[in-house]
């Protein structure tokens, strides 16, 4: 099934948060909604991410790298392969600032590599820059 990922011109920007850490996931979802005015959906793993992705059709995905099951890099590659995903922005946000992860993320199709922890304001600034707002 082809998905139309072209953003609807009106309404708030949509963000999908994918992180297996519940506190980070819920914190991101609520803080980005409250402080950034985004419409945020959340997923705890790759499977749930696929479901939420199809349902929400996000403008931007915030993706954790280390997750049980399929890792963030694989999710990143798969999302990029979806038709119409050229305009999708992907931010990798990981606790593992190990050398090489940044390069691997960008090669896998991420637009930005960030290490945890990030301040909410900094995150919102990055998101605004990526979405061209």
């Amino acid at each position, binding site marked *: 099934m082809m998905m139309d990922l072209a953003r609807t011109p009106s309404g708030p920007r949509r963000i999908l948060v994918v992180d297996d*850490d519940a*506190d*980070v996931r819920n*914190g*991101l979802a*609520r*803080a980005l909604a*409250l*402080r950034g005015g985004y419409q945020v959906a959340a997923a705890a793993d790759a499977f749930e991410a696929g479901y939420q992705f199809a349902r929400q059709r996000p403008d931007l995905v915030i993706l954790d*790298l*280390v997750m049980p099951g399929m890792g963030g890099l694989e999710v990143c590659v798969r999302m990029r392969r979806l038709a119409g995903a050229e305009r999708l922005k992907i931010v990798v*946000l990981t*606790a*593992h*600032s*190990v*050398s*090489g*992860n*940044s390069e691997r993320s960008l090669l896998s199709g991420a637009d930005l590599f960030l*290490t*945890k*922890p*990030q*301040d*909410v304001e900094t995150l919102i600034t990055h998101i605004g820059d990526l979405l061209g707002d």
Partner: protein
Amino acid sequence: MTDGAARFDAPAADALARAEERAAELQAELVSRTRELARSEAKYRELFDASPDLYLVVDARGRIAEVNRTLLRATGYRHEELLGRRAPTLIVAEARRRLWAALPAFVESGRVENLELVIRRRDGSPIDAIVNAAAVRDESGRLVGAHAVIRDITSRLALQRQLHQADRLVATGRLAAGVAHEINNPLQAILLHMALIEAALPEDFAERDAFERVREGVRRIRQIVAALLDLHRGGEQQLQSVDVHAVLEEALGLAQTPLRHGGVRVLRELAPELPRVWAVERHVYQVVLNLLLNALDAMRDGGQLTVRTRFLFAAGEIEIDIGDTGPGIPENLLPQIFDPFFTGGDRSRTGLGLFVTYGLVRQHGGRLQVDSQPGRGTTFRVVFPAIDEAGAGERGPSLEPAAGEAAP
């Protein structure tokens, strides 16, 4: 008669002549053998003296009968000071018990094998040694003395200790990085939820100061974790040609306020021309700043801060000394000061400063040394490989993570 006498005398004279001849021969041989013996003895003496091991000959009462030159050199004693002296007095008191324990077996078997002892030099300093000895017996089998070969293993033990220390730092570094990574997730959650709480706080919230304390605590945790992880990000850092003097001045500038308020004088002894080093500038800055702040901490009642740089031409290295006139570090604590979480009892500190400093210096192929004298002060010395000006433009050594790579 004369004939008879002649007849009688002739063989006698012959015999005499032969005897004289023989005596001369024997005399010559004796001289030659004696010379040979002397040569041979000199040869053995030479071998004895040239041996890298320390040789000791004792009599049946344990008194020193002979030593080789290596032993004299190693211990600092003169020959005449040792001859006749009881050999056990050369061994430090704590190790003597091991010698007594080995004696019964020695009397029985005539051998001592690989006995670890500590020998005391003339100046009192110790030599870690391994002793092998063999009994000397007379024809009736009576014990008349012993030959001992003593191997100085001080430097080997020191190297082993260094390797052990390095191993331990690698292991603890890996652990620290693993922990740091794990902390980043809850830290992220805390930051996000603090933002939510803050947004919901009423203007007149009574415990705003408590909230600020939480924020400050989180800021410090972030700093600690970031410092630990810095050690593992070597490969991602940008190496450049760094002007150490410029970095030193910048760090001194930052330390200006505590310097002024603490009544600390600064003595600069900077090399007129210092080659640059190939490094991550921020890391050099952090190394220098950590050592400066440590020095200032050690001089809360004032003192003199010495900042010295030197170019070691032959070694192709530069040296940065940062010295204080504080109370010094007790000798028993020195081996631990580069360990993570070592604070020397000061609970206001994280105990990571020197651990991180050591790691950063090592990543740049450098060395961090400390010289501390209780009551006089402490000097830290950083040694970095200098950029070879002739080969300028060439890439320097690449960064290696000092404490191993953490799993992604």
